[in-house]
């Protein structure tokens, strides 16, 4: 607990020195985003073509301190302030911001995903005649929220980060102003998102009330009372429901398919990958750091969420005829697999975290890739209907092969990445040899078969069926999109064939609590 109001005023406030290196990624992104805005404001139309390049450069530059922090791993975990023996550690923000291996892996993931999203957006935005520079500034803002999120160990910073992720996304979902579907996408996403935040906040307020501190580690200490109290349970349940909306867990997923279908497709990729990952990061932070002693409340709740999320997501995905919608529901189902390790985190929270992060990393590669192919195909077919993919092998064999790799990866078929992600989840579920974990593993296994059905359905269209209108002219793939597909294919294959590359990064993940 921090000092009271009175003591704060009375004490002579000494300014502690800031650990600039630790917050360099966020600062670079903030400064870069502002710079892009200013450049856009000054030169307007003349620099419009440069904005996407500039934004992607900002992401890559922000990646540099992430890498140096990782390489200089000795000092981790580091906080916002440089700990000085002479300066007493006071202040409300102490421990709210922590840079450790876990957050660095996620920051890298967010920045690289954002880079790929910019590659996906460039042609879509400039050819669609939308406001493009503002779009990239909003993406930068949203990614900034994600970076902060991965370091947040405090209710306030989690909340602010979550909103920073979401609010720009509401705007971008409604980006195609004249398109009714896009309007609807933005409206549904915004209403559900704001509602979810409100529920989440109510849960947080109860947790804060019990603990008297917003710091996650303080909450953990305060609720470690060896029994469950209704108000704690209520706070936990509301909090998890709030995150459930963000990660589109059933039954809080209703916004996802409509928003995904209506929003601009690059943004859909952003929501399905980066924004969802941010939701999971928040969930992990709260569950692992603040609620390690409340497994008896958290586990059953998440167990049920995970089981119905994967099952319902897959069953509805089976019926879809629109590929983007199908990917949306498949994303819902994948969220179920990602929730699964958190249903058995008691005592093995490191392993559970590592499994979720591994899944997030691999899922990002394969899902971004799938969306890249959807965007490329739509340049020719002007449609995301499943039937429009017929005969794709005849006119775009390379693209078909890439999509097949992504689909098999999503279905979890080796040797491409997805199997490793699934394996990690199964490993955590069976590790404790608990009936609940093994039952969930069996449910997940059955689900992966259902999922294979609709993934193969797409592959079938592309490989075996003729194109619907007999048009077999080739697709011109712009370099940015080609790069996006190339990067994601490489990542998907490498993570499956050499899973050590991923596990080296995610295996010693443990979420450091703020001090």
């Amino acid at each position, binding site marked *: 607990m921090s000092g*009271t109001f009175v003591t704060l005023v009375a004490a002579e406030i000494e300014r502690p020195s800031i650990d600039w290196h630790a917050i360099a990624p966020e600062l670079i992104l903030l400064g870069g985003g502002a710079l892009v805005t200013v450049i856009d404001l000054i030169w307007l139309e003349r620099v419009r073509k440069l904005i996407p390049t500039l934004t992607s450069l900002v992401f890559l530059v922000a990646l540099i301190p992430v890498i140096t922090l990782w390489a200089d791993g000795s000092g981790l975990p580091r906080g916002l302030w440089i700990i000085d023996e002479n300066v007493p550690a006071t202040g409300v923000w102490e421990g709210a911001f922590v840079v450790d291996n876990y957050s660095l892996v996620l920051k890298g993931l967010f920045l690289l995903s954002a880079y790929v999203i910019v590659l996906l957006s460039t042609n879509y935005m400039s050819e669609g005649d939308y406001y493009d520079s503002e779009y990239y500034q909003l993406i930068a803002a949203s990614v900034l929220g994600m970076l902060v999120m991965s370091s947040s160990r405090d209710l306030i910073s989690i909340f602010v980060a979550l909103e920073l992720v979401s609010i720009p996304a509401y705007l971008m979902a409604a980006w195609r102003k004249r398109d009714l*579907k896009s309007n609807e996408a*933005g*409206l549904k996403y915004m*209403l559900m998102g704001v509602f979810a935040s409100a529920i989440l*906040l109510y849960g947080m307020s109860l947790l*804060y*009330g019990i603990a008297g*501190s917003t710091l996650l580690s303080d909450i953990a200490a305060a609720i470690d009372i060896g029994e469950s109290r209704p108000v704690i349970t209520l706070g936990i349940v509301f909090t998890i429901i709030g995150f459930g909306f963000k990660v589109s867990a059933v039954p809080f997923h209703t916004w996802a398919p409509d928003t995904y279908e209506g929003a601009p497709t690059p943004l859909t990729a952003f929501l399905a990958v980066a924004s969802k990952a941010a939701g999971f990061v928040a969930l992990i932070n709260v569950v692992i750091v603040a609620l390690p002693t409340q497994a008896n409340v958290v586990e059953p709740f998440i167990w049920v969420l995970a089981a119905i999320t994967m099952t319902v997501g897959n069953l509805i995905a089976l019926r879809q005829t629109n590929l983007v919608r199908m990917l949306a529901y498949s994303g819902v189902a994948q969220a179920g697999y990602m929730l699964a390790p958190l249903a058995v985190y008691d005592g093995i929270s490191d392993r559970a975290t590592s499994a979720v992060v591994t899944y997030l990393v691999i899922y990002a590669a394969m899902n971004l890739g799938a969306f890249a192919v959807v965007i490329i195909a739509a340049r020719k077919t002007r449609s995301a209907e499943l039937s429009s993919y017929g005969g794709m092998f005849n006119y775009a064999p390379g693209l078909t092969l890439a999509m097949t790799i992504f689909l098999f990866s999503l279905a979890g078929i080796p040797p491409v990445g997805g199997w490793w992600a699934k394996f990690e989840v199964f490993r955590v579920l069976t590790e404790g040899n608990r009936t609940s974990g093994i039952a969930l593993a069996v449910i997940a296994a059955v689900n992966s078969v259902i999922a294979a059905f609709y993934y193969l359905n797409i592959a079938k269209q592309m490989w075996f069926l003729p194109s619907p209108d007999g048009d077999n002219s080739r697709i011109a793939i712009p370099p940015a999109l080609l790069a996006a597909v190339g990067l994601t294919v490489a990542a998907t294959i490498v993570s499956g064939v050499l899973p050590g590359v991923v596990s080296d990064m995610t295996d010693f993940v443990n979420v450091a609590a703020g001090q």
Partner: protein
Amino acid sequence: MFLNQFLFLSAVLFCIGVYGVLTRKNGVLVLMSIELILNAVNINMVAFGAFNADLGGQVFALFIIAVAAAEVGVGLAIVLLIYRNRRSIDITEADLMKG
């Protein structure tokens, strides 16, 4: 301290807000119902803060007020967009996509 009264008030506000979100068809009214929930949260935060003699609750409440303003700003912009294109802000009419 009168913590219970504050909590009771906020619980009532919360329930009214949730009820409003689930039943109202008008986009603006849904946003207002959400504001009610946020106010319930703010009351909780301030009350708990005072009860625990901790500043964090008030700080949190200030953040919520600021962020909620941004949310409502964006929200109203989107509702306005819908109104321009459809001449209606009935959210049940926004049903182009199903399945």
